[in-house]
């Protein structure tokens, strides 16, 4: 064995990673995100262990074996192009904003002045949504760990954190309400019981529990990002925000508006990923539409169930109109993705 002589050694001054083969100079986002999922399509198996060990089999079945494949995922870019530090800066600003909002409303005794019927409505719809939001957090992080490209992984890591963000604010509201109205609002057992047993919640809980076991990476992405979240976010950010304004709960409405910023970013990611895939492999439209058709009915039933609560509000919204509006948002979003129900 000989040490290589200077003439065979790399002399050219290197501008970026040797595995970054695009013509353009990479952005910071690309420098730290490009081609990190080295295990995708690795032979004989993704991980450097026995090829048949459980996680190798799992990834080969649900990731490499998914119908949702293109030749190369590394050309995908999340529209927001978020690095960790950009994400943190952005969300730190948003969190400061929400803190200031809450502070301002608390000075006006906001929680104490909410009407009892409205509080009862919140108890049954808004408070238990932390269970639902937690599932969205879990599934987001499933999609991220199963994604073929680091560009997708990182976007869904952030998405999971965003879901946790929304959940934690609702936990704050639960406690604040309980101090102003009644103890049960901060009783985990009571809130869990609503989530587990109230009939209007069951279609949503069923949808979300089944979402947990959609293990094919393409189906998990579709069911989460193309069906469940567009519907859930339209309901909990938009429709609930509208209802809150009608009922004098401007704090909740403004919070929902802020979560709608995260929602937009999530939809931008999902849309971009679908369009990227369809551009490379138009026949994937059939695959994706198939999954959409499979999951949409359950999502529809979930909204129908939850919209029932809207009639509890002192100034209600008609259930049929809410369901219709949410359904329309889903249709519009799918159309933007060149998909359809």
């Amino acid at each position: 064995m000989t040490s290589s002589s200077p003439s065979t050694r790399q002399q050219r001054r290197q501008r970026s990673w040797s595995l970054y083969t695009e013509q353009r100079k990479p952005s910071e986002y690309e420098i730290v995100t490009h081609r990190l999922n080295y295990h995708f399509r690795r032979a004989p198996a993704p991980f450097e262990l026995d090829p048949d060990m459980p996680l190798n089999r799992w990834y080969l079945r649900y990731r490499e074996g998914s119908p949702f494949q293109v030749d190369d995922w590394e050309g995908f870019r999340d529209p927001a192009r978020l690095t960790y530090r950009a994400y943190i800066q952005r969300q730190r600003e948003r969190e400061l904003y929400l803190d200031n909002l809450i502070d301002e409303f608390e000075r006006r005794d906001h929680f104490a002045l909410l009407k009892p019927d409205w509080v009862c409505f919140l108890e049954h719809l808004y408070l238990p949504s932390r269970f639902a939001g937690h599932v969205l957090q879990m599934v987001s992080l499933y999609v991220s760990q199963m994604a073929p490209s680091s560009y997708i992984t990182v976007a869904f890591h952030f998405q999971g954190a965003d879901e946790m963000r929304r959940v934690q604010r609702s936990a704050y509201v639960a406690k604040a309400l309980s101090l102003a109205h009644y103890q049960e609002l901060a009783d985990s057992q009571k809130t869990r019981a609503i989530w587990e047993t109230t009939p209007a919640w069951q279609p949503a809980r069923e949808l979300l529990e089944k979402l947990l076991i959609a293990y094919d990476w393409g189906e998990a992405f579709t069911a989460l990002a193309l069906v469940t979240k567009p519907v859930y976010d339209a309901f909990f950010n938009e429709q609930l925000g509208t209802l809150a304004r009608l009922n004098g709960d401007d704090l909740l409405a403004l919070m929902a508006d802020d979560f709608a910023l995260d929602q937009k970013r999530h939809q931008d990611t999902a849309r971009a990923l679908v369009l990227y895939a369809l551009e490379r492999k138009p026949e994937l439209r059939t695959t994706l539409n198939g999954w959409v058709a499979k999951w949409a009915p359950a999502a529809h039933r979930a909204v129908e169930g939850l919209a029932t609560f809207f009639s509890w509000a002192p100034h209600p919204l008609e259930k049929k109109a809410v369901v219709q509006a949410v359904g329309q948002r889903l249709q519009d979003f799918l159309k933007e993705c060149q998909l359809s129900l």
Partner: protein
Amino acid sequence: MPKLSRPDYYDLTRDMNWRLTYVSEKEAFPPELAGDDYGIPPAEWWKWDEPYKLTYREYMQNQAEKDTMSYSVKSAIARSHLFDQVDAGWKAAIAAHYGAIAIPEYQASFGEARMARFGRAAAWRNMATFGTLDETRHGQIQLFFPHELLGKNPQFDWAHKAFHTNEWGAIAARHLFDDMFTANHALGTAIQLTFTFETGFTNLQFLGMAADAMHVGDVEFGALISSIQTDEARHAQQGEPTLKILVRNGKKAEAQRLVDVMFWRSWRIFCLLTGLSMDYYTPLEHRSMSFKEFMEEWIIKQFMDQFRDLGMDTPWYWNTFIDELDWYHHGLHLGVWFWRPTVWWNPDAGVGPAERDWLEAKYPGWNDTWGKRWDVITENARKGEITKTLPQTLPIICNLCQIPIITPANPGRQQELDPYVTEYGGRRYLFCSEPCKWIFDQNPGRYAGHKTVVDRFLAGEIQPPTLEGALAYMGGPHLVGGRDADDFAWARDPVLAGTR
């Protein structure tokens, strides 16, 4: 500021545990992904309680401050020529570090995401969600910094490239980290990554390197490493509550086994990364402690105290481990230096006269043992016979840890010279040590179908079947690294030449 503080509402941020109705526990938490539940009821798992609590809002605040600091140090440094002046041995240490660690940090986000999805308690899943973000940060920051150094040294390409190659060190690191988290279930990850590796060992790597970096004057690297370690301390806390639940529910033996496996494996990789760096690459005048002293302080004293407080025992192979503190990493260093064309950095031999005095002081008897091998190398180097300082064959590689087999082979040492052997499924497996063999034998299905790089060579998978073919198979580390860091200046030192 909002009226309520964290303790007022914290329990409501983590009470999202419930009995599944529409799918089964087993479907939603399959043992391959979640780990065995060991018959422990879900409500027991729901008692999982993290020592260090924080909310999303606090996380954003804390982390924004940290990154502002790290990246501003970085841009200040970029304007200086600090890196150009840094010692060649130190360059070896950081080139090795970035290559071996940058991608695994990002991959640890998969391990954290595994717990965030398949952990059996909402509190655990929340902490793991923060951990997912942390590891994303660590991967990104440890890619961004070396990327900026690419123009100065192509070795830093390996910060990104290493895990795409079959370089033997990359294989060893992948095998370890896939076992530990990328291809592990949530329970295993909590105990093996967050508890065993992070609480125990990364303290060593990161704090040790931060201290050395500051001494060396590599302010940027030192600040980076310290900043990473503050995140680590937080997400490493997931191990303890998980262990407590296992121990409380009569599963101490299962927990012990998980720890024993990964403690040994962590030890092995730490010898490779930290042992060589602390005792051979870091410039002598900047060494704070020897590797053995550091291990004694951080592992044997501090970590083991914490360990015993949890009701766990020292691993069964403890005496083997203690014995190895005196010799294993010295052998590994000799091997890595000798087979240097196979690594992407330029190993510092670290055996000039002053260095040898230091080694003798820290490891009495070093000159009579390792020193005698280096004497031969030194003499050949001094005469300009460099070819004699390079190997003509491949070493035997352990079928578990993927690291070449090292034995002390000294007169008077009661050590096995032959590798440890397991026959399984008609194939013969060789191991460097009793613990590596034990790890394999505990769970052969996890490892048996894998081949070391030397197995592949012998099976004809590496073509051409020459040393050049092997180097090409490994991704060409010798094209950027593989030279003695000082170009043998240490061997031409008149003091050394005259007295030995």
